[in-house]
């Protein structure tokens, strides 16, 4: 006896109602690899990381990215990158950046000469 559903599409599947759940198990990686998705809203704007898709190859990843991240709103372009190709820093190493804010010689605010000029002008007048 097949499942008779309110949904005609389910009835047409012809699923045996008596069939108990077999030891059906998906194997690891049966749902493939992961790809990171980057979305561009307008031409000239940055592509932004928006999420992930599982796909068997890059072309399918792009197709799934379109379905998943460009269903509504504005989109002009999508990028996908295989997650294994992303070389990321370890957050534990963030301390390599800890001295960056101290590097005032890289900052326009690190160059203050107005006091020097004022002192110079004053000295000139005093002569």
């Amino acid at each position: 006896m097949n499942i008779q559903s309110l949904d005609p599409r389910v009835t047409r599947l012809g699923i045996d109602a008596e069939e108990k759940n077999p030891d059906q198990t998906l194997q690891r990686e049966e749902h493939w690899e992961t790809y990171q998705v980057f979305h561009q809203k307008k031409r000239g704007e940055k592509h932004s990381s928006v999420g992930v898709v599982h796909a068997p190859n890059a072309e399918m990843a792009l197709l799934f990215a379109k379905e998943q991240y460009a269903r509504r709103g504005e989109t002009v372009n999508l990028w996908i990158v295989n997650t294994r190709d992303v070389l990321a820093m370890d957050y534990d190493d963030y301390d390599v950046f800890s001295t960056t804010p101290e590097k005032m010689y890289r900052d326009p605010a690190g160059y203050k000469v107005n006091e020097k000029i004022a002192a110079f002008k004053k000295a000139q007048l005093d002569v």
Partner: protein
Amino acid sequence: MYGGGYIHDDQKKKPEMQAEDPVLLAEFEARIARGEKIEPRDWMPADYRRQLIRMIEQHAHSEIIGALPEGTWITRAPGFRRKLALMAKVQDEVGHAQLLYSAAETLGKSREDMINDLINGKSKYSNVFNYPAKTWADVAVIGFLIDAAAIVNQVANSKGSYGPYCRALERICYEESFHLKQGHSVFVYLATGTPTQRAMVQDALNRWWQPIMHFFGPSDKMSQHTETLMRWKVKMASNDDMRQQFLTMYVPKIWELGLTLPDPNLKKNPETNQWEFTEPDWNEFYEVIKGNGPCNAERLAVRRTAEERGAWVRAALKRADQHYVTPLA
């Protein structure tokens, strides 16, 4: 849709909360107290990880199983515009499942393992989807009221502490607002239509009211466990608070259309400002969780068949050199 707030956790199989390194734990709790998000590779207590996987996974399963009762009516939607809207909504729900599975994967459980646990009945999903959508008016009630209830829960959870889940929920809530609007539109059209249409929507409301009252789960006692989950911002509001908020927002929208709810005791107490109602049948709730609801068997059979019959396609597309890497964020 569809995260219910009620997170099924088998009390008998629940491990004791693990002892954690007190220094790391204090640092972790301080970060959460400061409103920081916890990200995938950060240190986290084992119980935090376990509860989040359970919650996000159940939410993902609810999205994907929730597409089934609604999908029932795609072939017979009244008119092209309603059909387009329903197809778009059902596609959104399946998309939400994908987002949520990815968020759960960042915690270390593979998508394959989550689907296995769903199909084998080990992992649960929201009970409401074990009830049948008998008429087109059921689509109205699901789209309007079940989505509304889910939004109450999801908006609360989007302010939780786990970064990937919050980001998925923000996107989901944005899309849910369309679902709620289209559900309300179908609901209003039926309620203001012919006497037959009104009777149809009243009948659907009568049948769905108990599952809706079940939706947030039974009253949660403030156990030490719940307190910890709230301090860790895994659980953001009590089941009772979310139910009260839902009733305040949506019961007036039902009553204003001259429809009734099948609970003579349902009223807001003006002194306490709290809704009073007849407790729904919680035995039925637990029976449905155990697998004895009207549609449990069909829902899982359909999901299992989809995996079985799609297996050869997935295998054909699989490359020998593929290599799974956990999503980054």
